[in-house]
């Protein structure tokens, strides 16, 4: 049986989360009607993880003895799953299981119903920071960097919120977002992707012992909402612009059409044209045309109305390796020691603070005998 679920019930690591998206079929290319093997693998893993027992049946089908929860949910003891999309007939009571089929949706609904929370530890890179230290992120002019010294690695708690953003208006679209917040709820990064990029997880214990208080969870979630709102504002404006252009084009075409028709109708009335062939003219008098115009315009506006929904379905509490980096900056006789925080999971130091204004500096220069960022200088 191809794609038989793994015996331990755990999905193959990388199959979904860290794996590639399902091979999108080329829209113009020939379509092969086969059930994608990753789909079978997912169904098997999920059923086993839900406590069902799965065994192979004839013709690549599966006989599934449902878990108690699923028995109650679907009101049946067992089910036969058919994956072959070319099978013209199904055994009595069998479910044709594909991502968009009725049974497939039923299964997916159950699979995504309960939001998930997990804990992970990000794997520290070796070396934890680039050899050149802060020089890799901060340029200098009239100065030179000395040796860098990386402090001991410690773990920060960061929270990654996973959500699905759906937009309606025109053809609905969907995006999967993940937003990473720091220990105090500050924004760290976000990705329009199902997962944080360039992060490897470390198997084993979660590195932070301290349990979270409920109030802190609430605060964190509120912060997540605030940051997501901000990101969505930008995204929605972008979308509104593209949709608005199409809507306005349609409204303008409608406007031209109806105003011409009204004009023609009034012209006809003025001339009292009968012409023997009334059918050549559009239907309706000017008033009903005006009413129809409004109705059509409302329908167009409704079709293009922008609506967005954000569904937060999960979060990851990360124990994230960080370390302090210390590096000397030389300018003739002047010696200045700069410190910065290094994201050890990515091996990337943060920008050092400007000694003058204390904002993150991308470039430091020597100015009037002191070291300043390009802006201060």
């Amino acid at each position, binding site marked *: 049986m191809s794609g038989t679920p793994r015996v331990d019930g755990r999905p193959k690591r990388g199959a979904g*989360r860290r794996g590639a998206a399902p091979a999108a*079929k080329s*829209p*113009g290319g*020939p*379509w092969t*009607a086969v059930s994608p093997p990753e*789909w079978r693998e*997912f169904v098997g893993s999920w059923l086993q993880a839900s406590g069902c027992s799965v065994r192979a049946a004839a013709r690549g089908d599966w006989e599934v003895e449902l878990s108690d929860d699923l028995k109650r949910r679907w009101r049946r003891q067992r089910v036969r799953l058919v994956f072959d*999309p*070319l099978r013209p*007939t*199904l055994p009595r009571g069998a479910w044709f299981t594909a*991502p*968009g*089929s009725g049974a497939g949706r039923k299964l997916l*609904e159950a*699979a*995504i119903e*309960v*939001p*998930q*929370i*997990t804990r992970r530890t990000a794997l520290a890179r070796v070396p934890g920071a680039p050899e050149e230290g802060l020089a890799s992120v901060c340029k200098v002019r009239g100065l030179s960097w000395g040796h860098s010294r990386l402090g001991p690695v410690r773990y920060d708690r960061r929270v990654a919120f996973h*959500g*699905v*953003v759906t937009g309606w208006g025109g053809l609905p*679209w969907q995006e*999967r977002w993940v937003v990473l917040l720091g220990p105090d709820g500050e924004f760290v990064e976000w990705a329009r992707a*199902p*997962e944080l990029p360039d992060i490897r997880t470390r198997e084993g214990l979660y590195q932070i012992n301290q349990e979270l208080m409920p109030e802190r*969870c609430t605060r964190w979630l509120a912060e997540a*909402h605030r940051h997501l*709102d901000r990101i969505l*504002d930008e995204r929605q404006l972008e979308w509104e612009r593209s949709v608005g252009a199409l809507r306005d084009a349609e409204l*303008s*075409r*409608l*406007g031209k*059409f*109806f105003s*011409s028709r*009204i*004009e023609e109708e009034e012209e006809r009335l003025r001339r009292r044209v009968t012409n023997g062939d009334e*059918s050549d003219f*559009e*239907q309706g008098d000017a008033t009903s045309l*005006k*009413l129809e*115009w*409004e*109705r059509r315009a409302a329908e167009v*506006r409704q*079709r293009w*109305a*922008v609506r967005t*929904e954000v*569904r*937060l*379905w999960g979060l990851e509490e990360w124990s994230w390796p960080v370390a302090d980096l210390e590096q000397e900056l030389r300018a003739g006789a002047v010696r200045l020691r700069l410190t910065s925080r290094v994201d050890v999971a990515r091996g990337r130091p943060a920008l050092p603070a400007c000694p003058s204004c204390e904002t993150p500096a991308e470039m430091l220069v020597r100015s009037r005998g002191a070291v300043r960022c390009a802006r201060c200088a």
Partner: protein
Amino acid sequence: MELTGTRYQVGQRLRHPQFGEGLVVEVHTDRGREVLEVVFDGRLRRLSAQRDWDLVSGEESPEEAQEQTPGSPRWHPQGDRLLERWQSGAVSPPALFDLHAEAERWAGWAGTDRLISLDSLRGVERFAHQIRSCLKVMHDLNGRAILADEVGLGKTIEAGIVLKEYLLRGAVRTVLVLVPASLCEQWRAELWEKFELDFVVSRGPAGQWGRHPLVISSLETARHERHRRRVRGANYDIVVVDEAHRLRNHLTLGWKFINDLSPRYLLLLTATPVQNDMRELYNLATLVRPGSVGTFTQFRRDFLSGHDKRSPRNTPRLRSLLESVMVRTRRADTDLAFTPRKVETLWVGQTPGERALYRQVSDFVADAVRGDTGGPGRPHYFTLMVLQKEMGSSWAAARSTLEKLSRSPDGLDQRRVKQLCARAGEVSAEPSKLRSLLRCLAALGGEKCIIFTQFRSTQDTIVAALEDSGIRPAVFHGELGWREKEDALDRFRTADPVLVSTEAGGEGRNLQFCRIVINYDLPWNPMRVEQRIGRVHRLGQAHPVRVVNLVARGTIEAYVLEILDRKIRMFELVVGEMEEILGAWQPHGSFEDEVFKLWIESPNPRVRKRRFAELAQHLMVARRLYQQQKERQGWLFPAAEKEEA
């Protein structure tokens, strides 16, 4: 319309303190005063243009203003549940989280360039042109389109994919499919079997409008005065109209009804958007997207040449305008290639006894139908029609019906039925048709073939005869369970040289590994014949297909074959064309009924021959009309780029 120098223009929206938002539809002067005509919530009002009304900018719609503004997205309640679980310390192992993430990936959709519905279709052959058309309908035409593919290219499948896609993406919730009354059930079955869309057929005074989200109905029923208000009230998100050429005339109730519905999405399915007049094309385009080809006056001025209503001018420009409302794929644009068909008629030499019995039973049927005047119920009409068909199939089949009739004659001449039954018993012992079949099989030299019959009793007779002559056939019929059906087809695929199948085998099965079809009996319905042949003559068939029709001279089947094969050359048509031709002829009723009616109403063979010749003439005219229409559509879109192999 007289434009004035005010700051207002038609098409703008303004806000009135009492009436709310309205659309300015006219600005003019009336007795020296500047006046605005504004539609507020379906009512036309006149306002003074001297006053300073609040103008609403084009980018903001009332729905957005009320429902959502940027920065206030709707938060799904799952976020609250997430917090509850987090606060209660419910932490899952990472593997479960990953599984959930994967479920999200399958449940969602990545972009708008991929059709998520494709994975879920069952038993449907999909082709690149269909996928392209669906993407075009949804992307470029925003769900309002005329699907005008040539026949046999799968307009129904395209409509089904679009429906399923919109439903899966949550873009539509309610769907109305309007089809000819005779196709309601067929559409319902197809949408369920292939797309798992559970439609109900709405008919009768109660109807299902507004009660069920997915409804199929005939256009005539939906637009009926009794139902019109309810259909409109149901506010369907998407409306699909099959055979939309019925909406070509803007003066018809059907056109007006659809125009009034103005659903969010609209699909019109027709292979012939223009028949006699370019106005028809204008009407369809206007229904889908008003203004896409201007007003009719503009259309006539720009695209019609003189008094010729059929030929357009300025075709490149018209074509480009039509591309914003119409998707048309021609067979030549695709790589769909079929191998040739060879059709043979194997004339069965009936014995004098068989010929006499056929004549006697036919007379009995004709007398009985003529005498069967019990009103609309007509208790024996269908039984007698079946009996007539069975005689063309096998005496065993006819005998079983005669036996039933003799047991419960219900007004028929029981003595005569019994006599005929006894004669049928004698004749069925050694039917000449079976001998012809065995000779035919012997000539095939063991090559795989499918023998189709309409009746189970005939099937049993064939199977028994084949087994007696040492041929082991696979048997397929509707009474088998799914496992037995699959086994039978497997056996035929791998071992048995012959498959004996009833009509059940003619539906939804791909048997391209075989290239010979033997019609042991000939259905009077040409669509059924086409369906049988279609099991082997489809994409993927590598060899020329051979169709053998077993027919006895002087029978009703001989007349049917004469019309289908010789007169309208049905076997040369491509898939779907016969349906179009019959559609053009449809005012005369069903082909089967017509054939039976001609048969029983003809007092002698000479009259019968003449009447069948007249029927053939009608169908030939229908075929010619169809060909002309097809040629007339040619200018619409030139051959597109070929599909990639």
